[in-house]
């Protein structure tokens, strides 16, 4: 338990903006925790507090057992950070950046050299390693930024949208490196806007909205919370939409929704395949000409919309 992250009741105010509103979060050691939330939810604020860059106005947090406010220096020795915007020195080369940040991370010169070469190769920067970062593409900068975060082999990693702006190969590489790290016991807190990535790579997901935690769980658990499978029936003619809706209702599906633009009727399908037979029979009875029929598991997008919308409604009450 000691190696993870524990935050309780974190509060952070920027003037009149309440960025964190009593946030709780627990990340077990050696796992990837995916942090999801809409823009402005407080993700970066949380990361900055945990990385000792910001002081919380309330609550407390521990990283690897060290209090982020009272034992900041100890926290800094065990964490690596890649913020939302690449923070490397534009005028220096990749090698120089790695060298300087490595020495400041209190590594020996020899260790910094060896480690830098390893990371340069790993992040595919060999050919550009001696050019000023100013001449890099956004993705190259991002990769160097991640390399710097990994320099001192941190036990806890904070990555704020590490894959934003990377091409698919770069994104895959980031997740692969992260996977290797976690296998070796590192704990990672990763924010991302790519929900399918979080689905695939995160062990645990925390959804936050308006500075509060709204759901925590494994990806599969969260999907179960937004209900069962989704059924989608596509028809050929708009005139088939009402009978299709009636058919789904007759098969016992709650609240079917029709979309006139895409000519689709959708509903949550409880009970899986057995209910599907009823649906097809009812559609047939109703004489609906079906163009396509799909059943899909809910995605994290569904979770995201359902949970963050709920928080929204809650707020308006």
């Amino acid at each position, binding site marked *: 338990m000691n190696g993870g992250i524990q935050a309780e009741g974190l509060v*952070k105010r*920027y003037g009149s903006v309440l960025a964190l509103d009593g946030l709780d979060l627990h990340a077990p050691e050696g796992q990837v925790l995916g942090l999801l939330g809409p823009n402005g939810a407080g993700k970066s*604020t949380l990361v*900055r507090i945990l*990385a*000792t*860059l*910001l*002081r919380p106005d309330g609550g407390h947090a521990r990283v690897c057992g060290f209090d982020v406010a009272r034992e900041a*220096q100890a926290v*800094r*020795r065990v*964490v690596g*950070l890649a*913020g939302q*915007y*690449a*923070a*490397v*020195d*534009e*005028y*220096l080369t990749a090698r*120089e950046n790695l060298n*300087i*940040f490595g*020495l*400041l*991370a*209190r*590594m*020996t010169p*020899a*260790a910094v050299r*060896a*480690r830098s070469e*390893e990371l340069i*190769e*790993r992040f595919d920067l060999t050919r550009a390693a001696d050019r*000023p970062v100013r001449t890099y593409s956004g993705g190259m900068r991002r990769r160097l930024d991640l390399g*710097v975060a*990994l320099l*001192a*082999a941190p*036990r806890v990693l904070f990555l704020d949208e590490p894959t934003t702006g990377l091409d698919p190969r770069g994104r895959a590489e980031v997740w692969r*490196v992260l996977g*290797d*790290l976690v296998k*070796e*016991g*590192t704990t990672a807190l990763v924010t991302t806007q790519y929900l399918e990535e979080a689905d695939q790579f995160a062990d645990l997901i925390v959804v936050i909205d308006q500075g509060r935690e709204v759901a925590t769980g494994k990806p599969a658990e969260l999907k179960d919370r937004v209900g069962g499978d989704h059924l989608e029936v596509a028809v050929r003619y708009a005139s088939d939409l009402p009978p299709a809706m009636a058919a789904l209702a007759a098969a016992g599906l709650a609240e079917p929704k029709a979309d006139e633009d895409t000519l689709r009727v959708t509903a949550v399908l409880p009970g899986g395949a057995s209910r599907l037979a009823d649906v097809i029979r009812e559609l047939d009875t109703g004489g609906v000409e079906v163009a396509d029929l799909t059943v899909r598991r809910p995605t994290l997008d569904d979770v995201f919309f359902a949970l963050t919308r709920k928080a929204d409604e809650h707020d308006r009450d």
Partner: protein
Amino acid sequence: MTVTDPGTAPTSLTATDLGTAPTGLGLALRDCAVMTRRGLLRMGRVPDELAYNLAQPIIFVLLFSYVFGGAIPLPGGGPFKEYVVVGVFAQTLAFMGVGTGTGLAMDMSRGVIDRFRALPMANVAVLIGRANAELVRAVLVTGVLALVGLLVGWRTHTGVLSTAAGLGVLLLFAYAMTWVGIAIGLSVRSPEVASTAGLLWVLPLGFVSNGFVPIASMPEWLQVVAAWNPVTAVVAAARSLFGNPLGMAAPDRLPLEHPVVAALIWSLALIAIFIPLSLLAFRRSARRG
């Protein structure tokens, strides 16, 4: 015996030997050295910045010595050329602090400073390293300006030691102004504001002084301000150490009676005030976000 397949074995990302770095004060000093090196590397990469540092003072030296040179008589006598070069030195060094503040504000806005703050390094090294690198820049700028001065006919008339002392007084002042710039750069957030805020107070400081015109030519109330201006003390100190004309018949105000002492007190006082202020501003930025 273990056999590893070099083709597929992934490089370990955590099991690296980090070595044992020195501890305590040694580490803090190493941080300062690393940060100084960073500053110097950057300086080398942006030669246009240095050129920009130099362009204006070189133009000033040429303008003042050739255009106005013959026309301005000095109280106390002496050639105007020799008088004005030291004024340009001090003016230039005072303005360099503005660039320091702007650069620091730029680092802050780009998140580089955040990265330093998230490291287990000695935080002061971020500031000390920058001040050190700026001091090197000040030495370069002073050297080039001295050469240009020599070309237009500026000379020192005292010994090597006294000349070196004069340069030392100028550089100490440059170092003090660097810390003023650092404090400003840390207190405001954006590079633009840092630049404007810096100029706003350096401009009068540079011009309401004995740098370009004798104080005696100013209205009475302004003479008082000019006499107590640190730039005036520094310029008068350097002129007297170089053996250049002082531009006054007889010193009539306290700082001008003892210009070297006044210059040292001013510079040391600025350093003593603005180093702690800078550190405070640096810590405070952790709370603001």
